């Protein structure tokens, strides 16, 4: 029995030593706002780590940290789970960071913990997806949700005309931002394009290209008169496009979606994907860090402010909602200009 105890003890010791060595760099700095060298520690929390979109934001955020001389901690849950995200934020509070910028998986779920952060003197802001506005000091939006939802629909209409059947493939039924864009888009259709007919409820694809591909093949057969597809979440439009490409329907069916330019390349080339609309997630990450530092230094955001490497931002009349800019359309002739 003693032996086992020794072995377990040594194992855990080894583990903890390895852990502290790995985290040594940032662990050493310890807590306290405005640490010894006077630079701020800004934590940026995505919905989850490990997907291309949030990887691109991380690159932007880290670059801003370098350019501006602030320490950026980019961390988040490994799954889009609100519970895990709450944990991450609670631990950041314990670390006594100066600012927390979070892209909430579920806005309501974070309110209590963000309140705690605020009470602890930490600057709280949201990015990518809005959190409870009564708790955040800044809300950084990449685009205006309504504008984006409507833009996607407008692009679809441009391609397929204003009457006909279309289908929606989304990343997941429980993804807030996707649902927001879809809902705005549907309202827009009801008001302005009554000739468009949605054939069935939005179809989830589990954030996986192969599921979107499979579901699109099924949809094409179930509804042979489809003229267009809207794809939400970065893998979905690619899965849809692949199915269209497979069946040689590039000219008959319009596909518009939210996708990254480099991944969309092959499908934009042959027209299976017509328009990929998104924004530069790297810029968003950069902007978030920039604005965090800006606010920590006691400055207010101004409408029309020019942010280096980002451009002119729009600030709404409430003084805290920031819109990075209009959506960018990635098309066959311009997608090569982007590296994300």
């Amino acid at each position, binding site marked *: 029995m003693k032996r*086992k105890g020794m072995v377990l003890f040594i194992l855990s010791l080894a583990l903890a030593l390895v852990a502290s060595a790995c*985290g040594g760099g940032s662990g050493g700095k310890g807590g306290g706002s405005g640490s010894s060298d006077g630079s701020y520690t800004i934590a940026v929390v995505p919905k989850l780590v490990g997907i291309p979109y949030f990887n691109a934001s991380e690159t932007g955020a880290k670059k801003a940290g370098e350019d501006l001389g602030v320490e950026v901690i980019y961390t988040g849950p490994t799954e889009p789970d609100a519970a895990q995200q*709450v*944990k991450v934020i609670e631990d950041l509070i314990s670390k006594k960071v100066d600012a927390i910028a979070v892209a909430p998986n579920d806005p309501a779920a974070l309110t209590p913990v963000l309140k705690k952060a605020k009470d602890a003197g930490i600057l709280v802001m949201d990015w990518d997806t809005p959190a409870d506005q009564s708790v955040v000091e800044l809300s950084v939006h990449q685009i205006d949700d309504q504008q984006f939802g409507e833009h996607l629909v407008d692009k679809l209409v441009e391609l397929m005309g204003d009457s006909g059947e279309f289908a929606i493939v989304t990343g997941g039924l429980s993804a807030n931002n996707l*649902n927001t864009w879809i809902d705005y888009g549907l309202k827009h259709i009801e008001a302005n394009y009554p000739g468009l007919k949605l054939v069935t409820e939005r179809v989830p694809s589990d954030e996986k290209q192969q599921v979107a591909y499979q579901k699109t093949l099924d949809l094409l057969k179930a509804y042979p008169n489809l003229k267009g597809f809207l794809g939400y979440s970065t893998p979905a439009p690619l899965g849809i496009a692949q199915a269209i490409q497979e069946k040689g329907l590039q000219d008959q069916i319009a596909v518009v979606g939210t996708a990254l330019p480099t991944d969309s390349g092959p499908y934009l080339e042959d027209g299976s994907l017509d328009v990929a609309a998104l924004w530069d997630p790297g810029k968003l990450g950069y902007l978030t860090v920039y604005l965090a530092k800006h606010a920590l230094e006691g400055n207010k955001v101004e409408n029309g402010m020019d942010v280096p490497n980002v451009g002119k931002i729009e600030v709404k009349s409430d003084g805290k909602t920031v819109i990075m800019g209009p959506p960018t359309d990635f098309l066959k002739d311009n997608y090569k200009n982007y590296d994300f």
Partner: protein
Amino acid sequence: MKPIVLKSLAAIKLTGYEKILLGVFACLFALFSLTAPNFLSSVNLQSMMVQMPEFGLIALGLMVVVMTAGIDLSVTYLAALSGIAIAWALVQGWPVPLALAAGAGAALLCGSFNALLIAGTGVSPIVLTLGSMILFEGIALRLTKGGSISGFPESYYLIGGGHIGPIPVPMLIFAVVAVLTAVLLNRTAWGRGVFMIGSNPTASKFSGIPVRSVLIRVYLFSAFMAFLAAIIMTSRYNSAKVDYGSSYLMQGLAAVVLGGTSITGGSGTVKGTVIGVAIFQILSSALNLYSISPHIVNVLMGGILIAVLLVDYLVKMRQRAARLRKAKGSQASSGGNAG
């Protein structure tokens, strides 16, 4: 209050394995206090005490099921569904106690689905709960259309955010439930039944144990634990959604195994599971404080699970070797009979 707590703490006996587990916990705690930034800060201690219960309750439920050589893969979606029921009721304006009853009802309904089918038909728990897991997720999706339900009355936050003294309410709930579970397992016929069914189902059947009724209560217990976890989660997160806590299944199972419960059933203790849960909790908090990539955290958690299994095996081997040596020794001294 204090003397009772201390006396009952003193009365708790720990098995050898549990002593070691507690030792590991203590060492890790000490190490993290020294090296992880702000580990001992009241903020961190508070958040650890608040994060542990929802995970711990699910682990307790899983433990009892695993002790009967079963498993419940549906427990996290069951909790989500229960939370959704509570949330819906609160938003409709029902008073809190009634809303809680709605959640309990939903949980017990789902639990009965599992319980009756498993106990009644003898179907294998892993495949049935695979089906019920998908079913519950589907129902939750159908009810919420993927969105979340929020907008609870202020008084509800007290459950997740309230304190009694320095201890958060969820932790108190967990402590009480843990004690009750231990009592149920050790001092009731049901508890004895749980142990027996896990160790030897056939013998249990023939020794007059009402296997069916015990099993039904086991899965209802797991569902009730899920309900309690749902209360804490909806109160802490201020809303209910289909995918809250979906990561707790794997982690819960790992904590249960770490705590000494045998996956083939028949043994397990509440103390072991509690310590196992605590170890996972401080590990995950400390690793976050070290700013280690969450992916590496996953790797480490998996590695620890395997390491524990390895150590367990090595110890068993040594024990067996020691026993063999003793047996051979006594044989030799008693005249050395062959075979």
